[in-house]
């Protein structure tokens, strides 16, 4: 399996390590090479400095046709765009975008993008721990089969 991770923060690096450890082909993209310090020394995958929303950069790095594409940068919009580039242009199998604004996350979930919302996940975790009901907002949504609305 080929995994592409855009954004080598704590979550991105942890996932890269796990996929690599499990023997998969991993590509990590970040605009800062310093971010790659988070990867373990024994990381065998590919780490590439570049803009993960740029189709050319992703294509050159070999992201085309990847099985899984994870957009995990700190910018909601960057993640949304990277995930859509991956799905529309690079024919990846599955794409997930981290969107921390719950309203935007819900709106994009409606558009068929699998979203991951840290805000909701953490709020729900705390609410659950304290015995409150959840926020009722989606945190992780499985992508519905992608259907174009036009054409």
């Amino acid at each position, binding site marked *: 399996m080929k995994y592409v991770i855009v954004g080598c923060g704590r979550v991105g690096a942890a996932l890269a390590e796990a996929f690599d450890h499990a023997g998969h082909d991993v590509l990590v993209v970040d605009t800062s090479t310093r971010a790659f310090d988070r990867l373990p020394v024994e990381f065998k995958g590919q780490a590439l400095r570049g803009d993960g929303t*740029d189709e050319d950069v992703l294509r050159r790095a070999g992201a085309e046709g990847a099985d899984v594409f994870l957009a995990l940068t700190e*910018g909601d919009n960057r993640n949304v765009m990277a995930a859509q580039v991956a799905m529309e242009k690079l024919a990846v199998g599955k794409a997930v975008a981290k969107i921390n*604004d719950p309203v935007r996350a819900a709106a994009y979930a409606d558009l068929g993008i699998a979203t991951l919302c840290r805000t909701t996940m953490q709020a729900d975790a705390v609410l659950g721990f304290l015995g409150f009901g959840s926020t009722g907002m989606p945190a992780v949504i499985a992508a519905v089969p992608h259907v174009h609305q036009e054409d």
Partner: protein
Amino acid sequence: MFVLVVGGGKVGYYLTKELIESGHEVVLMEKDRIRAAQIVDELGSIVVAQDGCEGKFLRMAGANRADIVAAVTGDDEDNLVICQMSKHHFDVPRTIARVNNPKNEDLFRHLGVDELISPTRMALGSIEQDIPVHELLHLAALENELEIIEAQLQADSPAVGKSPSDIVVPEGCSLFAVVRDGVATPLRPDTILREGDKVIAIGRADCEVALHEQLIGSIDEEPATA
């Protein structure tokens, strides 16, 4: 017409100013408070000093009743999200996005942005028009990946001496006019093309190579003049 402009940089500012002067109702969103205050001083209280990428603030600025949303920030990803949120969440009939990376044009159109403004593409077009090359010139991009192309014929171009019916154009492509000595005329079946003619064609971007070969000549030849 109610227009919501997102992004108070140079483009957003002048766009808003022009729209107000032509009598439209305009709201401008600019998340930088200092910049927003500056614009208020100059144009009046038509600025919402919030991030136009957030659904909550888009609603506050009136996205649900906007006729047009123009996303003209300096970041492509922001402009895409503003347009998608406007279109799918607020049912805005017409969305316009500024696109800086020409590579993103296809994607934006594909994802439902109605109109694109591409400063990079425009500058590139102007530069190409000033350089005497015998490449194809992109005059305008239309919807559905169609574009208007100009081909200037050289002395050794295969199309010289032929009439339009003798030229095999790629499918989905059509030649419609010729500019000769600064005069534009429609291409007629009996028009004989000459050196120096500018043939205007309309077609899909991926027909370019074939069109180039039919009209100007094989692409890998070194240009005779530069």
